[in-house]
C-alpha cells in the first residue's frame, strides 16, 4: 500500500470516515478533529504497519494529512 493510501486508510478508520473523502491539504486538528489521544492512536497504528518507533515530538510537528503522508513516505 502506498503511503497516501496507508495514511488515509488508518485515519479514515480512526475517525469513522471514508478514506476517499480525506484530502491531503486537510489539517489534522482543525479540519479533522484529531485530538491528542487520536494523534497517539494514529502513531500507534502507523508504528504497527511500519514496525518503527515514531517519536511523539515528530508527530506533534505534523499539521496536515500531506505532512503525515510525507513523513510515512520517508519511513518506508
Amino acid at each position, binding site marked *: 500500500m502506498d503511503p497516501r493510501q496507508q495514511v488515509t486508510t488508518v485515519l479514515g*478508520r*480512526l*475517525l*469513522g*470516515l471514508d478514506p476517499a473523502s480525506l484530502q491531503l491539504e486537510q489539517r489534522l486538528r482543525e479540519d479533522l478533529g484529531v485530538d491528542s*489521544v487520536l494523534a*497517539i*492512536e494514529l502513531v*500507534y497504528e502507523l*508504528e*504497527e504497519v511500519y514496525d518503527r*518507533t515514531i517519536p511523539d515530538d515528530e508527530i506533534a510537528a505534523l499539521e496536515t494529512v500531506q505532512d503525515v503522508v510525507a513523513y510515512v513516505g520517508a519511513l518506508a
Partner: protein
Amino acid sequence: MRVVVTGLGAVSSIGLGAEAFWSAAMTGRSGVTALEPLGGFPLEAYRCRIAGQVHGFDPAAHLHPGVARKVDRYAQFALVASAQAIDDAGLDVAATAERVGVYAGAGMGGMIFGERAYDKLHADQRPDRVHPRFVPAITLNSAAGIVGITTGARGPNITVSTACSSSAHALGQALLALRGGLADAVVVVGAEASITPLVFAGFCSLRTMSSSFEHAPEEASRPFDVDRDGFVMGEGAAALILETEAHASARGAAPRAELAGYAATGEAHHMVIPKPDGLGMARTMRLALAHAGVATDAVGYVNAHATSTPAGDAVEARAIREVFGSRADEVLVSATKALIGHTLGAAGAFGALACVRTLQTGDVHPTVNLTDPGDCALGGLSARAQRGEVDVAVLNAFGFGSNNASLVFRRAR
C-alpha cells in the same frame, strides 16, 4: 417526590428495542442458543456450551464508526439501548443538559477489549505496543462515559458495579439522585457483553453455569425448576429514562410507571453463595416496600432474580414466601432469565423493563421451562403467560459479594 419511567430501550437476544423484547418475552421465546466459538478454542474446552448471545448486532447500523470503534461491545449495547430510551421518552437532552444524568450498571466492563490487549501483550512480549485505547475502553464506567458524551447529558455520570445486581442498584441510586435534587432526568442503562474466552471460562470453572442442556439450549435456563443446573450467560443492554414527575409533566411526557422504592443491603455471608435462610433477601424486599410507602398486600407481581442455579432460586422462593406469607401463592412471579439467560450487570434493567410493561398491560411474561418447581413451589409462577391486575411490582437482584437490591414499581397514577 415521585419519580416516573418515561422511556424504554433494549438490545437483547430476543429482539432489538423494548417492544421487540417484550413481545418476544410474552410469547416465551428463548434467546439461548449453542455457543459461538470463543477465541479460537474448541467448544469442548468449555463445560458450558450455550449462551444467550445477541446475534447479528452490527454496530455500524446504529453508531458512528468513529464512536463504535472506541468502545467495547457492552458500551455499544449501552449506546443503542440508551438512544432508544431517550427517543421513546421524547427527551430533549440538550434542552436541560446539566440536569440530565447517566447512571449505568455493569458487572464486568470492557472485557473483550481487555482480553485482546492482554493476549497481544503476551504474544508479542511488547509492553510498548499496548493499544492506547485499552484503558479508556476497559474501565467499568466507559459505557456511562460514552453515553454522556454522545447524548450531551451533563448531570451526574455514575457507574454502579455490584456484579449481577449492578443495574438494579443503578436504578436505585438514580432514584435517590432524583429525589435528592442532583438531576431532573436520568438515563439508566444496564449493559454487559462478557461472553468472552476468559470470563466465560471463569464462570465454567466456578461451576455456576448450566452444562446439561447442550442438546436443547432453549431449555437450559429454567429458573425455579427442579432440573435447573446453573445459569446461562446472556448479554445485552436495557435502558430506562427516569424523571421527576414534575419534569415529565412539564414537558408533557406520559409516565409508563413509577419507581417508588429501593433498598440495598449486604448479606455479609459469602462471595458467591447466598445465605440459605433467605432472610436477607426478605429484609431487602421489606425495606424497599417501606421506602416506597407501599403495603406488602398491595404487591401483585415479583420479577425474581432467579438465575436458574440450584442454590439461589430455592433461597429466593423461600424469601418470597417469608415476605408475602399467606399471599405467597397469589402474587404473580416470573423470572426474565428464563428467556434471555443471565445478563449479569444488565439483568436488573431487563427485569425493570418487564415490571414496567407488566404494570402497563397486566401481562406477565412466562417463566419458560418450568415444569416442576419442587422446593421452589409458588402459586404465582407459571411456564405460561399470565394476566393480573398489578398495581405494584417488586424487582429483586442479588449479586456476588453478598449484596442485595430490591426495587418497587407502581402503576402510573
